[in-house]
């Protein structure tokens, strides 16, 4: 399994509201709401922790999901958010980011 790193884009605005994480892309004003599991991944997206570790530490440790399913779900979720530019994905650690 290749290492994957994720980082929150700076071109977003986010706020927890009503038990969900509301995220708006400042680029195209698309609105997302993340459930508890997705929020846990989102909050751990620091650019330096590999996605696999995030899934183990933040998802499997807290929610009853088997690691394989959890990682597959996380990958899909991550690529979905990346398509809208609100999450950055790389196979290298992401140190800093330019405004997208």
């Amino acid at each position: 399994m290749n290492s994957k790193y994720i980082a929150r884009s700076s071109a977003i605005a986010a706020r927890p509201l009503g038990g969900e994480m509301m995220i708006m892309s400042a680029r195209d004003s698309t609105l997302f709401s993340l459930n508890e599991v997705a929020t846990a991944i989102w909050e751990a997206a620091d650019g330096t922790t590999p996605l696999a570790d995030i899934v183990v530490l933040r998802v499997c440790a807290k929610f009853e999901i088997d690691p394989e399913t959890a990682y597959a779900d996380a990958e899909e979720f991550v690529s979905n958010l990346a398509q809208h530019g609100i999450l950055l994905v790389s196979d290298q650690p992401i140190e800093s980011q330019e405004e997208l």
Partner: protein
Amino acid sequence: MDHELPFSVIDDDFARFQVGNVPTVHFNDITGPHPRQHARTRHPELHPTEVVGDFDCQQASRRSALIQQLLHVAAYDNLLLLARQFPTPTSAPASAMVSKTSSEASSGQRRAAHSGSQSRNCREEVNHNGPNPGPDCLLYNLDKRVSILVLAPELRFVVPVEIGGVAVHLRTDSAEFHQILLARYGGFLNPDARKRLEFDVVIRSSALDDGTSADEDVNVRLSQGKWLLSRGDFRAEWEMTKGLGWVQQSANPYSIDTLLRIVHSLVLAQEGGFLLHAASVVRHGRAFLFSGISGAGKTTISRLAPHDATLLTDEISYVRRGANLYQAYGTPFAGELAKPGENISAPIECVYLLDKDSHNHVEPVTTVDAVRMLMRNTLFFADDRELVKNVFYAVTDFVSRVPVRRLAFYPDERVWELVRL
């Protein structure tokens, strides 16, 4: 100084001089080395232009003659005299600036003044201004340098329009447009409110003269600290930090109305508020908002409001965060009712998202839907990331504090039985 200056000093630091009871130009905001670079944001026609030239004024008699000349200029009733300290290449100690504003100042005159800047003779300079026997402005240095500063004509009328506690002063030289403003914003005039922004209105008989299409859509963008606003029928610039701007339009109330909506939406976004496509009505001391796009029923629900209700607007609601609550303010921005709202405010009790149906019912709305719908109905003019973020934070904070429900209604007055505290 070997002579008496023909004017009185009002302000030493940025010395302002005044002849008789002639009003002074508000140039306090000009600081720094060069007036032109630090002048207020003004319409090009209203922008002061400085031309520096060396004049043979070393002899006291020549200086005297020059001052006599300036006094001659001062005989005109709109003369004003200004002076300020600023360094010159010859390290002259001080400059006295003598100015005459002229509402007939044209770019042609400015060019004439500019081309004469190398003249050694001040009289020639004065004569460049055609039939009006005075320069628009002279900057007169007591050492040996004389500059000409074409000052903006002062605008005669100031209309202080206060909406949502934000006072915008609209300045115009047009008596016709002054009357239009008074008629349109009559209920929202407050000369005592602290001025937040000031716009010079430059009236054109036809909308724009730069080849822009008359049906061009609203365009708002931030460029080097300035908001550039335009639509087919107007063009404006505005420096938010200085609170100064200008707008060029024809003498109609619609262009200025759109400008005010844009300006207020941008000001509010910085202060945790927003303008919402919604009617708002005050009843029993609380404001109820009814949000929806055109045709959703904003005007209808406003018309159906009971007699003890006060209408804040049937089109654009003004939402601002207060100490604990969100407050709705009346606006002059009217929809189909074509009637400005009352100039009062009240804490917001609830927002109803309007929907039409065969019977009246209220339904809960999920948090995500509430945010999505309010974002959709918020007035957005600029494709600006900071603005999007600010509005998002304002709307999400609002949703965390104020209930949002869906109101499906059949258009008769019974719908108001569902709208209660």
